[in-house]
């Protein structure tokens, strides 16, 4: 099959440093303003109030979080918001040492999927862990939300700063 591999030109750093290749650049300016929608709109409003909420599906009976206008399994409208606790259980986590552009972080971030108490089993949300040594984090660990003070909340997922161990 070797003969059916094209001899593609592999550029090296030296090619750029020596000015052997020409290129054009462009920096996009594209700002977006997303409407939060029916279900997440309420979710964000309740975050501003210092509360986590889910929704109830009248067909499968599950309590879903993040809230959604319809249950994607049953394809019927959910029928109401349900208050949840601001505690939960770590389903999985990572200890992240790099930023999106691969620059190393001075202090690692600990992203986690946290199953929220009061929702149906396995209903997790993505958030961060804090006030815990990375080595001490375990799957199954019980955690509680650490909220921004009310005057700093703006109706965003970041109104919860992070989750910290319950102990």
């Amino acid at each position, binding site marked *: 099959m070797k003969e059916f*591999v*094209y001899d593609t030109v592999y*550029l090296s750093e030296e090619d750029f440093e020596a000015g052997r290749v020409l290129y054009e650049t462009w920096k996009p300016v594209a700002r977006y303003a997303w409407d939060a929608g029916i279900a997440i709109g309420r979710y964000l409003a309740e975050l501003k109030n210092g509360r986590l909420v889910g929704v109830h599906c009248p067909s499968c009976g599950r309590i879903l979080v993040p809230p959604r206008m319809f249950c994607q399994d049953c394809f019927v409208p959910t029928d109401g918001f349900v208050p949840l606790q601001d505690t939960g259980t770590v389903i*999985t*986590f990572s200890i992240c040492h790099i930023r999106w552009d691969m620059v190393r972080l001075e202090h690692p971030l600990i992203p986690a999927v946290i199953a929220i108490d009061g929702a149906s089993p396995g209903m997790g949300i993505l958030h961060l862990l804090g006030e815990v040594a990375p080595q001490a984090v375990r799957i199954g660990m019980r955690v509680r939300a650490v909220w921004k003070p009310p005057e700093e909340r703006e109706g965003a997922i970041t109104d919860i700063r992070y989750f910290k161990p319950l102990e």
Partner: protein
Amino acid sequence: MARNRVAIVGAGMTKFVRRAQETSKELAWEAASKALESCELTLDDIDAVVIGTAPEAFDGVHMKSEYLSDGCGGWGKPVIRGYVGGGTGVLSVIQGWYHVASGLFDTVLVVAEEKMSACQPHPQGAFITIFDNITERALGPNLLWIFALEMNAYMTRYGLSKRDIALVSVKNKRNAADHPAALLGDPNITVEDVLNSEVLAWPVQRLDVSPVTDGAVAVVMAAEHVARRVTNKPVWVEGVGWNLDTAYWTNRDLSYPTYVEEAARMAYKMAGITEPRKQIHIAEPYDPFDYKELHHLEGLLLFDKGKAPEATALGITQRDGDLPVCPSGGLLGVGNPIAAAALMKVAELFWQLRGEAGARQVPGQPKRGVAQAWGDLMQVGTVVVLGI
């Protein structure tokens, strides 16, 4: 439902490189022209074109399939583009299959291309947009998070160590040393090299991950009456399957890819496969990260849940093992130009089943293989079964 029999009759590709001088369109042409050359056809012989390519954001051009179309031989022909993230390369073969199986076309040129290097400073800047724009992106995620979170869930569920998983990276990068298009082949890499590589997002380390890559791959698909005229070794598409799970990924069991199983069951049923472990001789599951090969082998029903690592340690998945897995070298070794990477896997089965894989040829004249890709927000499985 009556369907026409469809074969792959030709394949070609570019070298996979970190940064190609060629534009995306030029890469597409390189692969397409090699695929046509391999079966001695010209563009005049092609009825329709399928283009597989991932987000516009990598290239920064709008309507990427229209941009690529002349490099793919699409001008003046019926053209379609499919896109399901990393699952695209196999989806494009599925689309090529139904173009021909339906009787609508006799010949289809399938081209998958990705040039990730244009997106500066890092293509992760484009990848970030896969996270939910309101409830997740504000947390400052990067693409590695979802893999790290899934890998940890998989390891914890089955009590696996990093060493168990690193064996996959070693196997694939060594296999890739025999691939003439490979970016990261290394015949001497060891488990210690993987375990000592830079920690990016634990448990993911540098050598657990496939590289950012530029490249393109193309295959020619044909109806039976054309295939038999073009080649004496047509590779038949025996089954296809694809399946999408919910985008609420934090609500799912991350330790098992149910959507891959559903896609595999669809493809196996079509292929008449009732015992995949006996009836499939070679597998090219999607391996952008080392644990993903294991995850996908289980989803493809080739090993019990949690047992693919043990099979790997026993050498079963080596090129000379009972079930060779990623004899190409996979994404970890050959490289990962997103859509093109998965089509590379299909091309590898084509060459292996025809006995044309050279130094990579698996012994025992394999008769049937499965290729699988995965993508979107950890939610899509695409599967094809090929046989000779």
